[in-house]
């Protein structure tokens, strides 16, 4: 009964491949996010969806495409993977207008070789 679950937990793939990471939350939140933690440990926001609508889209290569089929799911598809995409990707969710915390998933460690 994990609140925010991401799959897979680990992903190793070759350059040039296309891969997807899935995220689901069962908290009834209406806003979901993708964050990237790179090798320097920066946690940077990539995207945010509110009720399936994109509300935050940071400067991210358009090889990254989020998709939200419903407000409980936010998937991240990455085309033509590059070495620099190697990072830990965290999904999170929150309630609109709530100043309090995000609830994070446990992360997906992506390694591009």
């Amino acid at each position, binding site marked *: 009964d994990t609140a925010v679950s991401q799959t897979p937990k680990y992903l190793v793939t070759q350059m040039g491949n296309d891969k997807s990471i899935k995220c689901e939350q069962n908290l009834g939140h209406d806003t979901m996010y993708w964050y990237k933690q790179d090798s320097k440990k920066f*946690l*940077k926001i990539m995207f945010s969806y509110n009720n399936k609508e994109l509300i935050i889209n940071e400067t991210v290569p358009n090889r990254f495409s989020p998709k939200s089929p419903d407000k409980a799911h936010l998937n991240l598809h990455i085309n033509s993977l590059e070495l620099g995409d190697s990072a830990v990707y965290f999904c999170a969710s929150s309630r609109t207008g709530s100043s309090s915390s995000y609830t994070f998933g446990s992360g997906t460690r992506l390694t591009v070789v």
Partner: protein
Amino acid sequence: DQQVKQNSPSLSVQEGRISILNCDYTNSMFDYFLWYKKYPAEGPTFLISISSIKDKNEDGRFTVFLNKSAKHLSLHIVPSQPGDSAVYFCAASPITSGTYKYIFGTGTRLKVLA
């Protein structure tokens, strides 16, 4: 441009003593601040928050202090326990139309020695 900075990558403290973790920010538009705790192979978990209208918020052993003029916040843990050993992130967000977009620092690894 790193808007939220945690200049100490690591900190070691004896069990029972106070741990003080620091965070500086550059954007005066930030209105809300959070501290997260992260264990290895897990996502960050929320610890404590403070809004810009306050200068202190306390929750059990955890207290966050905000100095807006210095653009500085700190997390105090008293007394420190071995289970507090983790990476601590501060995060800050402006409030724009009810939307929060948190920017995180790079974290401070706290080790509490038994």
